[in-house]
């Protein structure tokens, strides 16, 4: 305290406030090297609340809850709001609530997956109904609406990758939209491949990738993929979800189709 000049005591209060402000600014600058890396790490793993998205959309209670730390609970309540709008087929209400959920708490993958399903699979029917119904509309318009919503759902899921890089379920959901709504087998196969490369991907992702390759006429690629996959799977008895026997049966089918010589065929346990 003695470092502070005693003469300043006689200066007006405004000067003292200015001095305090100066000390705090200097402290802020000095502590910046401690703050910046920690904040960067925080934003990487848990993005800051997007207040600009939330502005005016929520009541004071929600804002207080968010500031108080009840972020997960606030997101759950907003998810309830999204579902209530969904039950009423309220297009704009559902979309707005889904955006809010993502802004408040982007951590749960389930919100992104289920939100994308609403956008991609339910909203097109509401839009078509609002336009006069499927029977009254040209097929091209109906198809256009379905494709537009599928792309919106994929865009919604792509945003989730910022918070869940390479999450296998996000890749799988995009693959299903590409397959079922946009008839893009090649894109879906690639997404299933990306999903299967992740250690937490469900076993079926790799099997579906091979099946899509087969449907695309790329039997040799599918065969090579399954031959590489089979030794990595646990035995059927140890884990039925892995379906090692099914994978082996598909390998045999493809060997027949590719007319491979007996010597070239896959032998389990032989590298």
């Amino acid at each position: 305290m003695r470092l502070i000049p005693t003469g300043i005591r006689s200066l007006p209060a405004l000067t003292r406030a200015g001095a305090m402000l100066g000390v705090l600014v200097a402290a802020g600058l000095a502590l910046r090297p401690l703050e910046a890396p920690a904040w960067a790490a925080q934003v990487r793993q848990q993005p800051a609340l997007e207040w600009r998205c939330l502005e005016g959309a929520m009541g004071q209670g929600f804002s207080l809850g968010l500031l108080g730390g009840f972020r997960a609970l606030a997101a759950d309540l907003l998810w309830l709001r999204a579902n209530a709008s969904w039950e009423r087929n309220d297009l704009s209400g559902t979309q707005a609530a889904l955006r809010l959920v993502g802004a408040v708490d982007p951590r749960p993958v389930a919100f992104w997956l289920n939100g994308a399903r609403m956008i991609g699979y339910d909203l097109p029917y509401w839009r078509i109904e609002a336009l006069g119904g499927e029977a009254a509309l040209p097929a091209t318009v109906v198809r256009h609406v379905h494709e537009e919503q599928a792309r919106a759902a994929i865009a919604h899921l792509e945003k989730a990758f910022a918070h869940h890089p390479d999450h296998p379920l996000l890749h799988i959901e995009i693959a299903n939209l590409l397959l079922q709504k946009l008839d893009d087998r090649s894109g879906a196969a690639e997404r299933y491949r990306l999903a299967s490369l992740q250690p937490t991907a469900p076993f079926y992702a790799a099997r579906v990738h091979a099946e899509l390759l087969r449907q695309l006429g790329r039997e040799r690629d599918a065969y090579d993929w399954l031959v590489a996959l089979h030794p990595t799977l646990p035995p059927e008895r140890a884990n039925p979800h892995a379906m090692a026997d099914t994978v082996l049966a598909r390998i045999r089918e493809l060997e027949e189709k590719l007319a491979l010589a007996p010597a070239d065929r896959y032998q389990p346990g032989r590298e």
Partner: protein
Amino acid sequence: MSAVGTGSLRFSPHRVVVLASHAFLDAVRQRVFQFTTLLAAVLVVGSLGLRELDFGGAELKFVADFGHGALVLFGSVLTIVTTVQLLGGELENRTVLPVLARPVRRSEFICGKFFGAWAVVLVFCAAVTAVLLGALWLGAQALPPPLADAPQVPAAAVPYAGVLVGGALQGVKFGLLVAMVLLVGSYARSNLFAQATGFLVLVICHLQYLARDAWQTGHGWLERFGGGLIGLVFPNFQLFGGEYLTAGTDGAALALGGRVALYGLAYTAVFLALAVWSFRRREI
């Protein structure tokens, strides 16, 4: 000013400890401490029954998030109210005069109030964190074994160590908040003003990162200057509750936690020094 000249009186840590222990005992007797601690603990335990309300995350994650929310919300309320009552109460009731009439430096008085209030909040943090750990343990006992439908099933690991780190960092943050409220209280003329300003400061500190954003990406010099000023003057409270700290307790996470704690303690020292300086010039 003190009735006794304190110019030649040396700063005594012993007197600070005596003042802090009195402040601590005074604060724990207050209903606000008992009420907030009990309410936070009940909410944490009650979150076990609210798991049905969770739609997005894992069950234990919800309990951990909810418990952390209770710690942050009620801890903030307790910190502001207790600090204002400890300092403002003495000023309003004029009980500060007999204390300062003794050979006690004003800096010792403020430091005593600081450590007393901080100790109360640390007890609150320890109690709520312990209840949260218990609730997580109870919740973990009721979880079914995970289905191995993937080569590696993400383990539903209970983040015990992360909760401990999170609780400790909240304790550091509340210490900083105590120092900030003491600075406000050192010039405030009423408890109501001090409390209202304390809550305002809390909100600003939680939203400080927006000011930093405005500083770096704002349009026009006014927005950038204003954002920069707020971003530098107020500490970033969001740093203390980051999931990056509680998600893992590996070396990198602990190093970041240590960095954040150091940041909080350094800011606390600055605000406490300013509170002392401001209080020394106050007419009582």
